[in-house]
């Protein structure tokens, strides 16, 4: 009997130790796997909350996007996500552009994920041609054999017929014939809501912008004070930040940076949709919003310019429903919260001509993959051509992408991406992940992605380093 007792309690001790090792990942590395064809029997696993339920049925992704959570016991700094999937033949046949991305939640208030591509049919098709080089994890395609490798291509800066995919090229953009405005004219933008990013251009000028923010939370008394952050980027690197500016009702804030080299600067305002950016005032003459503008409380109608001809437009206030004019075409925006996808024909004689959007409405949310300005004069484009669903493949002379081609085994693809978890949100559900497949925006039973298996390897500090750091931190205090 004593032997049995020793055996049982040694077994219990061993099981507890094994569970503790799995849970605390003392060596800083742990792998979680979810196989959809072999559901968990003994435990509930680490992957959960796959949804929304109408977009993912069993293991088939029918709509876009799909979310899931990975329950992890502690913070990690890096994740390697491996996914085995099949794209239905109908989806491959019927969609000209198939792009699948995955990523982790980095901003909960704005529902923002940092995405990495796992599949792109254009790159996969191009990879079969002979003019593709894969070097340093980069995919480089050239129509004619003009350059020896991608470094030579980047050094030559021939960017007009070049396209980039998931690649940030820190080139020094200079606007030709630009001279600082000599008049005292102030560029003013009124009433935009929530987080926004925009570019300004400066040469021998100070980066001077006056902001006025208003807290329009309907439940101010019960809410905690609102906060926002402002970041300034130059060539994709943060050069200045003001984190967590707290305020109750309103905030006047001035951004003033001097002795900056000539170029395009990106300014990012991170906040939530309760915050109205009442005014943005600057003596700089060039200012363009990136990918999104949410106008609100516009009293004299609205006018915008964009370099793209495709728009996703949403009315978020019932009072603002109305018609919208894009160049010479009029479209009704007659349903609240519904996204209207509008594409207009671009003037082929002058493809660089800006698209004008106007309306008598009090505000809409405008989104596309391009830029928006409030006047033709203030528009400039410091961005590079990005590969997207509107790219005409015939026009691609060069394509540089930070992309690892998926392996194909039978009909299944296996993709692997590295995801940076520093700055990712981990709450009681764990890390939030997304699988984005915009080609599935209209739910169709025959078009789907079938997921066979997801594996996530988490890497971070080992437990001993972590404890050491904690002790050092305590002694410093």
């Amino acid at each position, binding site marked *: *009997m004593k032997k*049995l*007792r020793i055996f*049982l*309690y040694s077994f*219990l001790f061993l099981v*507890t130790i094994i*569970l*503790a090792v*799995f*849970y605390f990942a003392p060596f800083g590395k742990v792998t979680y796997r979810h196989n959809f064809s072999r559901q968990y029997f*003994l*435990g*509930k*696993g*680490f992957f959960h909350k796959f949804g929304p339920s109408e977009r993912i049925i069993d293991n088939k992704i029918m709509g876009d996007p799909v979310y899931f959570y990975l*329950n992890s*016991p502690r913070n990690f700094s890096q994740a390697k996500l491996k996914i085995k999937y099949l794209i239905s033949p109908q989806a491959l046949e019927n969609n000209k552009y198939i792009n699948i991305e995955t990523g982790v939640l980095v901003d909960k208030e704005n529902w923002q994920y940092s995405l990495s591509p796992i599949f792109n049919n254009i790159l996969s098709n191009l990879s079969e041609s002979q003019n593709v080089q894969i070097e340093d994890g980069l995919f480089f395609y050239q129509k004619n054999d003009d350059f020896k490798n991608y470094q030579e291509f980047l050094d030559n800066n021939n960017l007009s017929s070049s396209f980039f995919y998931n690649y940030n090229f820190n080139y020094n953009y200079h606007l030709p014939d630009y001279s600082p405005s000599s008049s005292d004219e102030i560029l003013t933008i009124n009433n935009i809501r929530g987080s926004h990013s925009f570019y300004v251009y400066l040469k021998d000028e100070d980066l001077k912008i006056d902001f006025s923010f208003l807290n329009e939370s309907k439940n101010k008394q019960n809410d905690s004070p609102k906060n926002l952050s402002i970041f300034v980027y130059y060539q994709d690197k943060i050069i200045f930040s003001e984190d967590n500016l707290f305020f109750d009702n309103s905030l006047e804030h001035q951004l003033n940076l001097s002795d900056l080299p000539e170029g395009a600067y990106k300014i990012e305002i991170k906040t939530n949709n309760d915050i109205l950016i009442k005014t943005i005032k600057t003596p700089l003459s060039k200012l363009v919003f990136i990918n999104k503008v949410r106008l609100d409380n516009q009293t004299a109608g609205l006018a915008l310019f964009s370099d793209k001809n495709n728009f996703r437009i949403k009315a978020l206030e019932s009072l603002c429903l109305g018609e919208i004019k894009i160049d010479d075409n009029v479209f009704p925006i007659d349903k609240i919260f519904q996204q209207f996808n509008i594409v207009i024909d671009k003037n082929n004689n002058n493809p660089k001509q800006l698209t004008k959007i106007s309306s008598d409405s009090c505000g809409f949310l405008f989104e596309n993959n391009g830029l928006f300005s409030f006047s033709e004069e203030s528009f400039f484009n410091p961005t590079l051509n990005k590969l997207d669903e509107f790219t005409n493949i015939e026009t691609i002379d060069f394509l540089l992408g930070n992309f690892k081609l998926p392996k194909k085994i039978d009909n299944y693809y296996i993709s692997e991406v590295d995801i940076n978890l520093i700055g990712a949100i981990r709450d009681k559900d764990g890390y939030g992940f997304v699988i984005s497949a915009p080609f599935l925006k209209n739910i169709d039973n025959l078009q789907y992605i079938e997921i066979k298996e997801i594996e996530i390897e988490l890497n971070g500090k080992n437990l001993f380093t972590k404890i050491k750091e904690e002790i050092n931190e305590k002694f410093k205090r």
Partner: protein
Amino acid sequence: MKNLKDKSIKYVQELFYFFSIAFVLFFLLEMIWPNFVLAYFNINFLLVAWILSVFYLLFNKNN
């Protein structure tokens, strides 16, 4: 025969203590660190084993 039964009762009694301790331990660990046990093991299986041992002991000890 009686000897064998006595022996089995002793073994099941030992298992009953083991299941009780394991259940309490796993329950506490799960309370302190959610998903410590449940991610890998469904405690309901342990509960069923514990109930079976209880019934076995109840019926056989009374007899």
